[in-house]
């Protein structure tokens, strides 16, 4: 009998969650900036996925494009011209989207995992352990991000995995702080008390009651971390930490700068990757802010 009761309670919970998600989506659809952001993102994700259809990967290597004229403007070489080695800018932009999106997303997931764990644990185990963890978080918050990332990247060496690691390791603190604040209010709620009184373990409480409660906030804050991660990738690549074997928008800017595109006035080399970065970053920001308005309890209370 009890198993039936548990199953139906679970069913009710699922139904409720499904309804909450459907409700959030219908709210989200009404946000125009949010929908614009989502559309732009969908286009770039499609570009990254369809890269082999849009441009030939072999064109990324200078030996394969010996016939191309270097420094061709878009007027001479469709659609976006060539770089100093005669490689098509369009090919690099298309294939670079994979790296930029991958690094942005992977680094954010890493940061979210660390931030979420630290935030939940710090909020849940009040007092000592919590205070200690938060102190650590404050420390990481204060250390200026870029110098730390540079130093880490310099120590670890240039590769895409290290860039993801470096950005992930340096971007979690603000998320941890946000999650902790939310956990602190959640754990005083009656339903958590009730569950605790019924003998639920801490692990159960955290996984079943606290985590679902903060997941909306985590989603919004994660979405807002992606643009920061993408900009960080750009800067780190520009400073020379990009993976030498993979094109990325940041690396294109680095090469354009280092190889004199500015004095050659070869704007077609560094304008397209920059525009792509701005569009993707802007799109993630728009989506994140729209999500935040729906999912962040503090903003929701404010707007009602």
């Amino acid at each position, binding site marked *: 009998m009890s198993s039936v009761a548990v199953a139906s309670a679970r069913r009710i919970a699922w139904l409720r969650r499904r309804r909450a998600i459907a409700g959030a989506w219908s709210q989200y659809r009404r946000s125009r900036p949010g929908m614009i952001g989502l559309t732009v993102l969908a286009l770039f994700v499609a570009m990254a996925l369809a890269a082999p259809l849009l441009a030939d990967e072999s064109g990324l290597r200078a030996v394969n494009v010996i016939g191309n004229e270097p420094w061709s403007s878009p007027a001479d070489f469709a659609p976006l011209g060539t770089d100093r080695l005669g490689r098509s800018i369009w090919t690099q932009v298309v294939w670079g989207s994979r790296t930029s999106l991958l690094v942005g997303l992977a680094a954010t997931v890493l940061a979210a995992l660390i931030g979420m764990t630290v935030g939940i644990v710090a909020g849940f185990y009040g007092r000592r352990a919590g205070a200690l963890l938060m102190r650590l978080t404050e420390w990481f918050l204060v250390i*200026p*991000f870029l*110098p730390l990332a540079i130093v880490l990247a310099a120590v*670890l060496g240039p590769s895409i995995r290290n860039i993801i690691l470096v950005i992930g390791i340096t971007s979690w603190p603000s998320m941890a702080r946000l999650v902790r604040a939310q956990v602190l209010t959640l754990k005083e709620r009656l339903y958590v008390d009730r569950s605790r009184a019924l003998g639920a373990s801490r692990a159960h409480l955290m996984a079943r009651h606290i985590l679902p409660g903060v997941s909306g906030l985590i989603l919004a804050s994660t979405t807002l971390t992606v643009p920061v991660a993408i900009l960080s990738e750009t800067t780190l690549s520009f400073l020379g930490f990009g993976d030498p074997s993979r094109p990325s928008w940041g690396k294109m800017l680095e090469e354009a700068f280092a190889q004199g595109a*500015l004095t050659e006035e070869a704007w077609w080399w560094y304008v397209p990757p*920059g525009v792509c970065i*701005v569009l993707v970053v802007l799109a993630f*920001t728009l989506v994140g802010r729209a999500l935040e308005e729906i999912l962040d309890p503090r903003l929701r209370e404010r707007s009602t």
Partner: protein
Amino acid sequence: MSTRIVLGKLLGSLATLAFVVVFNFFLFRVVEQDPVANLFRGRNLSDAQRDELTREFGLDGSKLEQFWSYIQQTVGLNFGRSYVTNQPVIEEIADKAPATIALVGVSAVLSAVFGILIGVLAAWRRGSKRDYAATTLTMTTYSMPDFWLGMLLLTLFAVVLGWFPVGGISDPNAPDAGIGKLLDHGEHLVLPALTLTVAYLGEYALVMRSSLIETMREDYLVLARAKGLRDTLVRNRHAVPNALLPVVTLAAINFGLVLSGAIAVETIFSWPGLGLATYEALQGPDLPMLQGLFLVFSASVILFNLLADLVYVALDPRVRVS
């Protein structure tokens, strides 16, 4: 009571600084198992040379002994010698700091002033065309890599139009002293400072806008209006000063950002400050230089956070009471 808060903040900052110093040690000496071999990647090194270098870097002895000598050196502001110039790192940093202080100082102030101004104008006519334009503009500049903005400005104003020099801090033909020298430096400062200002005013504008919108709901603003005060008076005397509080915190965070942003932007404009020094140290890599720069960057950000905290205490009576 207020002194207790100040003292607490001071101790907190010192603890953070201590953490950074310890962290720095681990970063460079423990994570990297063999710095000497790493530094001389691919170069032949005799055992004798190797031992000498190890000793010179303070890498002989146990980790604990290394840690102790590192702490002593750091407290004495001895960060070792640059591998490239063989000058003491602290002197290199002292040489290059003024250029960065000028650039970051000007940009930090200008981005705050213009960001706040844009935020106020946008929030006060919330939902208007002006608000829409201001928000779109600031969100866009906020989404730009700072150095890319620098590349665009450099192309337009220095290469195409030729209004400003393409880089560096002084012209070889410019006068060596007096007003002429200052004007020459100023001319070189315009583009990098403009880049950093535009790149970082967006966040001020966005935060100021939402803070002011929040403040506009307060009862005392309704009262101020009910008293019949003119719109600009309500805005400038009653709304804006209260809405400025969160911006103070942001100023500290942003200072760190502008300082970091200076690394790439100084590189674009060959502005001979700490940012360009960081970029150059990375090419080596010149580890003692990087380490010293990392400490200096961190320490100045910590200092600015402390200042912001103290200003906050002075401005917001609620912090003093609680």
